[in-house]
């Protein structure tokens, strides 16, 4: 396999390379390569933050098939929209040990005034002026622009004036129209999502990006998705001489599809093997994005811990009270304690670093002498392994058939 050499030489991977990596049956060899790239970039440094998630409304005009969270109409059973005071109270209740970041994503609520969101941001900043507001996905920004008759730039500028600091990466799903039109046809398109981020980057904002995998998409769709992100990131940061532009994607977060209670509930969820594979390939393709995040809510803390050796360098944060994945059947806890995150990272033999939203170091924790971390370990043989071995056709066939299982079920007419 020539890919390993290409990756070590720092050459950029092509579409075909990406698909080949997804098809590589030897998960460990793939992981070892991604780990090499990750360690070259970050060594053992592994990031997390003290954040809290708030979802202020689950009323949503979009009808995404994968969503178990949104309620289509205000007043529908289970629908809920927080009063501003209720939302602020969530922070007030945590001021004894305040988060550094508040992460807000919502349904696309047609009945709220734009000022609701501006006031929402202002209120949090009044309570804690230095709290970082990482709020509203590109899909929400697009919805605001349409709904309130503004350009993306106007929306972002107004929200920034009210306290917005960065955009989360949600809403990306799968960009390719063949998939997107079928699973979430009535919200921002892939191009529109990317355009919102482009504008945000131009304004000097830093944002994240995601990909929802493991439903009806193919490997080709995943690679296409990653390449679109890489191309946009190139516009901001690649090749241009001079000081680095402040904007751009900071982190990429693969999100595993969870099937409970949504329009694709007949589909099986992707398994841990797919989670690790996707983390690893993302690390290898996205050569211009600094961080790959193993979002523990998506994969479970145990698999996220392994992912820290498969290319990921970030575990997200304490989160406190997640509701979107939990609506889709996630059985992980809704939040993790600070110490728990430190422990997870240490057990993986890494150095835990509490960061702020923008990856400034808040606190660096010392390494401890657990078996993985007692000695600096190197993957001596793994790289060689990938190059020399004859491919197992049967393994590759099994892999492809297991991953196309979803498609065979033909849940969509």
């Amino acid at each position: 396999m020539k890919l390993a050499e290409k990756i070590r030489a720092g050459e950029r991977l092509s579409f075909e390379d990406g698909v080949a990596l997804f098809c590589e049956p030897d998960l460990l060899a793939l992981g070892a390569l991604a780990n090499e790239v990750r360690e070259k970039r970050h060594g053992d440094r592994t990031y997390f933050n003290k954040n809290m998630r708030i979802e202020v409304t689950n009323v949503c005009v979009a009808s995404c098939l994968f969503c178990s969270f949104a309620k289509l109409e205000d007043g529908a059973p289970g629908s809920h929209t927080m009063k501003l005071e209720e939302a602020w109270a969530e922070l007030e209740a945590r001021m004894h040990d305040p988060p550094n970041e508040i992460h807000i994503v919502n349904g696309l609520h047609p009945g709220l005034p734009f000022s609701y969101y501006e006031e929402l941001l202002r209120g949090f900043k009044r309570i804690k002026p230095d709290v970082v507001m990482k709020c509203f996905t590109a899909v929400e920004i697009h919805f605001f622009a349409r709904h309130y008759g503004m350009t993306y730039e106007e929306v972002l500028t107004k929200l920034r004036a009210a306290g917005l600091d960065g955009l989360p990466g949600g809403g990306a799903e799968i960009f390719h129209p063949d998939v997107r039109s079928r699973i979430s046809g009535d919200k921002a398109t892939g191009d529109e999502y990317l355009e919102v981020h482009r504008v945000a980057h131009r304004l000097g904002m830093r944002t994240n990006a995601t990909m929802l995998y493991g439903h009806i998409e193919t490997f080709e769709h995943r690679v296409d998705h990653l390449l679109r992100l890489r191309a946009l990131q190139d516009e901001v940061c690649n090749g241009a001489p001079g000081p680095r532009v402040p904007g751009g994607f900071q982190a990429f977060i693969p999100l595993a599809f969870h099937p409970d209670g949504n329009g694709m509930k007949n589909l099986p969820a992707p398994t841990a093997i797919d989670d690790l594979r996707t983390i690893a390939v993302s690390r290898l393709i996205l050569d211009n994005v600094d961080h790959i995040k193993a979002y523990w809510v998506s994969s479970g803390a145990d698999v996220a811990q392994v992912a820290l050796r498969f290319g990921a360098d970030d575990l997200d944060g304490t989160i406190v009270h997640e509701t979107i994945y939990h609506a889709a059947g996630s059985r992980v806890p809704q939040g993790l304690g600070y110490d728990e995150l430190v422990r997870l990272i240490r057990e993986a033999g890494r150095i835990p670093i509490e960061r702020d939203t923008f990856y400034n170091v808040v606190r660096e924790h010392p390494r401890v002498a657990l078996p993985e971390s007692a000695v600096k370990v190197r993957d001596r043989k793994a790289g060689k392994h990938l190059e020399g071995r004859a491919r197992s056709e049967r393994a590759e066939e099994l892999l492809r058939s297991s991953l196309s299982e979803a498609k065979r079920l033909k849940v969509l007419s």
Partner: protein
Amino acid sequence: MNLRVAAVGYLNARPLWHALANREDVELSLAAPSEIARMLAEDECDVALIPVAAAAALGDAVLIDAGCISSRGPVRSVVVYSECPLEEIEELALDLSSRTSVTLARVLLKDRPLRFRGMQPDEALAFARGPKRGAVVIGDPALEHEGKFAHTFDLATAWRERTGLPFVFAAWYARKPLEPRHVDLLQNARNIGLKSRDSIAKNESERRYLHESIRYDLDDEAREGLARFFVEAARASLLPPVSPKTSLDTLLQRAADGERLSIAEGERLLGEASLFDLGLAADAVRRRKHPDDVVTYIVDRNVNYTNVCTTSCRFCAFYRPVGHAEGYVLSRETLGKKLQEVVDAGGVQILLQGGLNPDLRIGWYEDLFRWIKSEYRLGLHALSPEEILHIARLEGASVRDVLERLVAAGLDSVPGGGAEILVDRVRRKIAKAKCTSEEWLSVMRTAHHLGLRSSATMMYGTVDTPRERVLHLAKIRELQDETRGFTAFFCWDFQHETGVRVDAGDGGTNIYLRTQALARLMLDNVDHVGASWVTQGPDVGQVALRFGADDFGSVMFEENVVSSAGTTYCIDAAEIERRIRASGFRSVRRNVKYEWLTPPS
């Protein structure tokens, strides 16, 4: 600090330690060879006169230049006794108290189609009276039975004829170099001991034995004989190869190639090799042992017949003490309902385990087993060693008698639970009332001799150190050499829950994967390694299939012990098969002997 010395109590060793016996600055322990080896491995002594095979298994033992026990010709105390000529022997009993003699016998007889059976010295001697049978007998029992069998085959003579070299049976070893004054102490003791041989010997036969049969010089020739033995035993895959400090790469390659690893090498891999390197080596071993890319699983049900237990293990959240309001013993009615569900789901066996309930006598188990067999025809994978010992104690019967009765009532195989860590330092801390490591192993040995197969397990992550985990694996491997009775190995980390009185030690997914991979590498003589998805979760279980496991355990109807510690997952056969396929394998349903019940799919 006094020097802690351990030595074999046999007559032939006496000249080496005789002069140490009454010294105030020496703590001398005398025991059987295997126990001395264990003491050195578990740091219960500073220097030990151990069988050289045990030193090779340790891998990092330092040879101390203070004499040895060797022989250049007939040794008289390491022999095969039989009533028929050697060439006619078909079954050979091995006296397990010395691995060196056993290894020597296997090296010398490796080209002969013999079946080996390990047993205690008196059993072995009785066994050797049978037709086409023989026994390797060592030490004092060998001398006592000199001339009492029709045929004697002296192993030291055979070695001398084959190699022209002396054979070293035992030598002084330490785990780190001794201070010069301690080496002097041992050397002086030997010199005094050699002069005292006449007073040590009780009769002329013993005097001749000490003067003529046994040599005590660790000279160049003896060292050469020792080196030759290590090479030949390694070539026959009986001992890990003795090699100078190798690079981690070489070690990984050797492990992947299936060469036997010493305890020190296992410890080094666990501490220094990366997650991927361990995984790839374990995966290579898995692929060689199971080239079909098949992962098996079983449809069975874990039934916990009682939660009443007298051991009060500190890590257990399941048990209730005798007389507690929440204590239960399952009624036939409840049990019948559960068993019918297993039959309905196409299940092939039940895993029956429970607490040590003093109200349940052997008759209760026999009736139960017979009833299950006649009503439901399910395989009975039942009663861990601890429960078997408990029944034996309760009945005042031997383990062998209990097992024979249970087998007659329908017992098919023995689960490997309760092993925890087979190092008594750990067991004393977390499960004081439980059996010792040796007791656990000896129940398994007896079960295997009766033809029962069993699994082996390890629960790590309490107070155990990485080295103790490796020692655990080495003990399983050693017993497996002897009996070939273990079908599979499973490990998991301690499942912590509030209320349990043990703090969690090393845990987490990476350590689980590393530990399982190391087990695959160390346990070169165990066919199967299972992923413990019940404790680690099905996600990690899947990943574990890439770290050396070739079995996905069982479908879960219920499980009570681990789930009382807060771990609950329930997945059915279809979901297990999906996960096996998603990991790149074909799935096969198996029975307790790992025989395939379905074609790969």
